[in-house]
């Protein structure tokens, strides 16, 4: 089952050259898909094509097709797509429009036909989920960056979309804040949401990513699981820098030893395996001595 399906999709903004060129890509239901690549690669445009902003909001020229949950994007409106896709834009602060936290979350439900107590219940559930319970009456302007990011997530979650699309959700946060946001996204992913994020610091998503998509200058360079994609990036001189340090260590060791090491998702896994490796070696030294 595919949540999103790009079929030879190409796109150009009005008065600009082609930013996405012949993209064919499947995003399975329930996956945690990460879109990465150097700046100007078309990452944001690809993410916006899932939400329908591309092409509905910007206009421009499109070739091929995008299917979202079986609906063809070009033949439906942004509002219809929004029922399936929740979007958190890179400039999430501008996305927040209400005065208080509770109203911000309730905003998307006001025309949904729910009554006041149903809305209130859903709002408090969404806030609970993102860890903002109890802040209902706080003013949006007074929240920290991480709290605003969580609020933007709660505001799209409340309409219960199947797919979440986030453009660089952690870029303005400190390491603890960034880790917190990704843990939240992981939890949502485990609850069955398909998560798509644009992220160039792959170290942040190592434990969670099920699919990594590499774009470069508008073309799809590679899409695969973590191991396949990072191995591919490692082979490309101009993409190598995007490989997170832990995997740079792993891939260098594999090159130099000829061994095949595990798919390290966390530092603990890496340490365990490296300890095993060095200990057996040390034992080997002791025995032969």
């Amino acid at each position, binding site marked *: 089952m595919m949540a999103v399906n790009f079929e030879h999709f190409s796109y150009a903004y009005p008065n600009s050259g082609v930013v996405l060129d012949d993209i064919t890509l499947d995003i399975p239901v329930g996956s945690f898909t990460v879109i990465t690549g150097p700046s100007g690669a078309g990452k944001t445009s690809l993410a916006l094509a899932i*939400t*329908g*902003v591309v092409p*509905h*909001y910007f206009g421009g020229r499109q070739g091929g097709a995008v299917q979202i949950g079986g609906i063809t994007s070009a033949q439906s409106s*942004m*509002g219809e797509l*929004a*029922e399936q896709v929740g*979007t958190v*834009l890179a*400039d999430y*602060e*501008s*996305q927040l*429009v*209400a*005065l*208080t936290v*509770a*109203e911000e979350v*309730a*905003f*998307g*439900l*006001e*025309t*949904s*036909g*729910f*009554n*006041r107590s149903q*809305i*209130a219940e859903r*709002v408090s559930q969404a806030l609970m989920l993102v860890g903002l319970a109890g802040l209902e009456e706080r003013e*949006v*302007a007074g929240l920290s960056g991480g709290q605003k990011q969580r609020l933007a997530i709660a*505001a*799209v979650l409340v*309409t219960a979309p199947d797919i979440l699309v986030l453009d660089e959700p952690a870029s303005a946060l400190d390491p603890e804040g960034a880790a917190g946001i990704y843990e939240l996204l992981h939890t949502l992913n485990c609850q069955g949401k398909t998560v798509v994020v644009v992220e160039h610091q792959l170290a942040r998503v190592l434990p969670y990513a099920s699919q990594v998509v590499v774009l470069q200058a508008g073309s799809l360079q590679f899409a695969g699981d973590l191991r396949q994609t990072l191995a591919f990036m490692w082979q490309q001189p101009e993409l190598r820098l995007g490989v997170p340090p832990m995997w740079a260590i792993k891939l260098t060791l594999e090159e130099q030893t000829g061994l095949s090491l595990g798919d390290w998702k966390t530092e603990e896994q890496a340490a365990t395996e490296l300890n095993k490796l060095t200990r057996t070696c040390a034992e080997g030294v002791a025995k032969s001595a």
Partner: protein
Amino acid sequence: MPKLAPLTKLILTAAVSVWALLIPTLTGQMALAAGQLLLLAFYRPTGKHWQAVSGLALFAALLAAIQYVFGSGLEFSLMSGLKMFVMSLVFVFMLATTRLQDLTAALVSQCRIPYEYAFMFTSALRFVPDFLEESQAVREAQACRGYVFRGNPLKRLMDYVAIVEPLVLRAVSRSETMAMSLELRGFGRKGRRQFTADVALSSPDYVAMIFMLVLTIGLAIV
């Protein structure tokens, strides 16, 4: 004090303006001003609101003084100053005691103002603090590049481009993002809008409205 619905306060705002026009005597106007101040005091406003009140008072006094200086009679000058004070004071009362979101809900669901207009009003207010913050940030960035606000007015105006231009461009990109996000959140969707704010009228509201009606008719007849 009983909690009044936003609609009642909106009607009160209109009623006070009518009364201010109808009351012919200085004592009557003063009573109206005193009544409003008393009402405001009952709702325990913050220092900020008292500041606004004193600002209005000062402005009214100035208005009266100017009229007097330019040859109007003393009573006429005092009268116009007071009228202005009375009519603007009621807005302070309304804004001090009503949440903006309740006001929007009342305007849309009870006064039948199109939601888009009411939304424009509240979202504009929502962006005031952000805009001030942004303008501070731009000012600081340019100060670090040697921007100083001095010289003759013309030079100052020319220099001000360094502040205004980044601000305007930021505001434009911001409203672009907001428009995009509104569409993404189904803003244009048809259907009855259920406000989360409770703005329904209750008995104190009806009592207040009857009182206002009687007073207005009374003043009109006298």
